[in-house]
């Protein structure tokens, strides 16, 4: 016979369950309420987790996946920006950045995503963002400890200076690669 009664096991597991639930509800920030002051809202990009991949990139620091909404994917598939035409209003693209690590499981040397670092958003609205060639930019930084995002800076032009380098490609660095 057990020294611990079923009742006390139930009570202990209930407390543990509540603690877990409490932890989750505290941590579960609603990212779609976030906004860069005087800039883009996270909610403008709702559903980006399911968007189609445009491309990837890797630097010494990070591994990135670039995904875009159906409007932008359709534009890519129609030959934009290589055909000299601009992306249409409503185009949205997100760049998800992870720090990287060597896989400890794979039987060969491969770098895989480690910690989520930040997400960049760009959206085309030629009326709303005329000063930055029709594109609005935002960055949200992810904090693993609190499982939450915070907006970086203010305004909607944070990426413009950098993206001017590819003005000839309607300010977009990444082509859509064959797959």
């Amino acid at each position, binding site marked *: 016979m057990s020294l611990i009664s079923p009742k006390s096991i139930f009570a202990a597991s209930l407390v543990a369950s509540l603690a877990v639930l409490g932890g989750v509800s505290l941590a579960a920030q609603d990212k779609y309420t976030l906004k860069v002051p005087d800039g883009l809202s996270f909610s403008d990009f709702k559903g*980006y*987790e*399911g*968007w*189609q*991949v445009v*491309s*990837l*990139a*890797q*630097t*010494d620091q990070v*591994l*990135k*996946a670039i*995904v875009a909404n159906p409007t932008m994917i359709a534009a890519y598939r129609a030959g934009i920006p290589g055909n000299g035409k601009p992306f249409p209003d409503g185009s949205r693209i997100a760049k*998800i950045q*992870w720090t*990287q690590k060597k*896989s400890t*499981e*794979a*039987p*060969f*040397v*491969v*770098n*895989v*995503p480690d910690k*989520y670092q930040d*997400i960049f958003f760009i959206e085309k609205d030629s009326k709303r963002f005329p000063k930055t060639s029709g594109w609005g930019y935002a960055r949200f930084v*992810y904090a693993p400890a609190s499982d939450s995002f915070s907006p970086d800076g203010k305004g909607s032009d944070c990426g413009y200076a950098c993206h001017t*380098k*590819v003005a000839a490609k309607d300010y977009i*660095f*990444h082509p859509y*690669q*064959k*797959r």
Partner: protein
Amino acid sequence: MTIRVTLQGVFIAAASLAALGGVAIAQQNKDTVAVPGGLALSEFKGYEKWQVIAASQSGNIIDVIVGNPEMIAAYESGLPAEGKKIPDGARMVKIHWNGKKHADFPAATIPDTLHDLDTMVKDSKRFAATGGWGYGQFNYDAGSDSFKPLGTGPGCGFACHTKAASVDYVFTRYPKR
């Protein structure tokens, strides 16, 4: 008004038709290519639009792993996990590109030409001999813009993936995004 058909015009039209023909031939191959005795690429139809699971890089190869809705649902339910099975119908495709330095941002390596597609599908009855998963590899030939199956049978990835047998043979995790 008369329409003048010049030799140059005829030549351009013929060249355009030839180019279109080339595209049509190459696109046929994607729907018909199959590993002898193994997976057909058409079993993964629509993978171009599937959701991203993760990205990785090895040597000069940079790749993205995408999954069908069944596989994404499995990830969102907490799989893969020790001792748990991925449901039948789950499919994944790993798109391997050769890497190159971005011409306008050399600090970044980005996809260059397509290298190959690796495919995995869960069907515990059909692939009972290989842990419930069927594997296929389709090498891309840029010269002919077509895919060539590698080897025979659905077991090409099994030996390698056995290292992850305790989590139903799946290496890739679904990182937060």
